């Protein structure tokens, strides 16, 4: 736990509903980030990736959801203790976020310029010509051609890739310390995806931001991230440096994810190799969990996996896994 950390999350739990309808969508999530680091969060739909991002922004929909335990420390300040006014000041200013769907993330009735300027007005007090000049500069920084004209364009006049660039411009407007990108390219064409990732990487390096990249694509994780957090069923099952996790995946779920990446290799009879799959589906959040959430789909399940959740064990340099296979003995 270095003092120079950018973000530290400890024991974060998020619950929805109450009583008989209680669902724990995040369970004891913990990880940390250094400044300028790119952290990948990977997992299937419904594993809690996006909920983790919302929790960091303190935007878990309430009711019915609430953060029931944990600490989210950004640069020494626990966000869960911050007042609502303080939180509004932090959002967009110190933490920014980009969504998956650029077609719907921009307000259709205002120009993209006025939407970029809004953040500048809210946090930096810029308005009028100053906000416009800064907005045009931002549009230029995200690689939008003729930014002067585009500043006055409406979202429907821009392509999906352009809109995602505008979203990135809005997100970096106030020079945040941390940028959360929630599947930023899922809705875009493959060629545009590569451009957006290149842009994110160059912006991150130029501005020294921390970047949390939420994705379900192990290829993106390998390409973009320094560290990776693998989530399953609302829990962190494995985390470590990306190259360690990809080279020596310790959790059976991570092994499955790594094996699922398609390759162009052929098998013995000259046909493309069959793509392995992880059998089963993500357990419903409404099912009461005892033990490891992955037990039902695991190919190396042990009898006590269903009884108790294994603790995170250190198996390498800052490489943690929560699996009974890697624990000494049994409960």
């Amino acid at each position: 736990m270095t003092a120079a950390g950018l973000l530290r999350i400890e024991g974060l739990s998020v619950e929805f509903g109450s009583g008989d309808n209680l669902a724990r969508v995040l369970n004891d999530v913990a990880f940390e980030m250094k400044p300028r680091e790119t952290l990948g969060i990977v997992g299937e739909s419904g594993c809690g990736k996006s909920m983790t991002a919302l929790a960091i922004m303190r935007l878990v929909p309430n009711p019915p959801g609430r953060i029931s335990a944990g600490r989210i420390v950004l640069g020494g300040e626990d966000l869960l203790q911050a007042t609502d006014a303080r939180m509004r000041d932090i959002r967009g200013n110190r933490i920014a976020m980009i969504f998956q769907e650029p077609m719907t993330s921009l307000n259709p009735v205002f120009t993209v310029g006025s939407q970029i300027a809004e953040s500048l007005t809210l946090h930096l007090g810029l308005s009028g010509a100053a906000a416009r000049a800064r907005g045009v500069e931002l549009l230029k920084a995200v690689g939008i051609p003729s930014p002067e004209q585009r500043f006055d364009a409406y979202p429907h006049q821009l392509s999906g890739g352009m809109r995602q660039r505008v979203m990135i411009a809005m997100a970096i407007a106030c020079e945040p310390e941390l940028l959360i990108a929630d599947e930023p390219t899922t809705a875009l064409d493959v060629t545009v995806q590569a451009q957006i990732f290149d842009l994110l990487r160059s912006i991150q390096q130029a501005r020294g931001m921390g970047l949390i990249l939420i994705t379900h694509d192990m290829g993106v994780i390998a390409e973009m991230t320094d560290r990776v957090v693998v989530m399953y069923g609302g829990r962190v099952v494995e985390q470590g440096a990306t190259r360690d996790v990809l080279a020596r995946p310790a959790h059976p779920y991570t092994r499955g994810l790594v094996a699922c990446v398609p390759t162009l290799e052929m098998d013995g009879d000259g046909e493309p190799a069959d793509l392995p799959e992880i059998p089963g589906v993500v357990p419903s959040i409404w099912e009461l969990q005892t033990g490891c959430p992955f037990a039902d789909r695991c190919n190396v399940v042990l009898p006590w996996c269903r009884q108790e959740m294994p603790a995170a064990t250190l198996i390498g340099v800052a490489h943690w896994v929560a699996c009974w296979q890697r624990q000494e003995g049994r409960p």
Partner: protein
Amino acid sequence: MSANSRPAHGEHPTREALRMFARSPVAVVGFALLGAIVALALLGPMLMPADPFDIVAAPLSPPSFQEALLGTDQQGRDVLTGIVHGGRATLAVGLSAALVSVLIGITVGAIAGFFGGTIDEILMRVTEFFQVLPALLFSMVLVTLFTPTLMTIALSIGAVSWTATARLTRAEFLKLKELDFVAAEHVIGAGKGRIIWGVILPNALPPLIVSATFAIGTAILFEASLSFLGLGDPNRMSWGLMIGSSRSYILSSWWAVTFPGCMIFLTVLAVSLIGDGLNDALNPKLRERR
């Protein structure tokens, strides 16, 4: 439609809507009709400065070119002068009552839809309370409690007719508040007031503008009903007042009620035609069929 194949052309949505509006014959007819009626109400009294309460001929004289072009009522007052002078009161009450109703409706609906939960429950029960009250009866009570002036009449009509706007606004807010661009506003740290009035409301406006237009028509009919029942401002000539005071003579002297009645009919028709035109122009589903 692929995200990247969309041509980067287009025009301001408001200007596009105006163009659509101007292309619709129904809307243009309504607009011209309403324009003529408003011009009559604003300029008419200057061209015909006579007091509409003055007696000009024998009571219940039929329309004639010698005395009164549209006849006189049972007190001998000129129907044409009454129509020209009565337009102002009718239109003023109609517009301001619609304004009051839309302001209350949007505020209640926006707050209920945005916050949801207990606030929504309470506001919707209040709305239902106003919905089940007989609106005319309730506004009659309100008018008789206060002195009937244009202001109190407009307020009392507005106070009983905001429920439909409130429900419409709430439905739009429930739909819009879940959209990504609203989430994006939360993410950049915008406050609730800014999100309600500056982000969601502008997106909810097209159906609300249409509803406000129809509200004007309803308010005009309402004002006429109140005047007909003798609850209008007795010192201001209005079309409803003219119909109300001559209603007993409808069989013997048709002109005293028919001409002001036609004016109300034409005004409400014009407003409805404009509302239809706006609906076509502002509804994105219809717009794409161009």
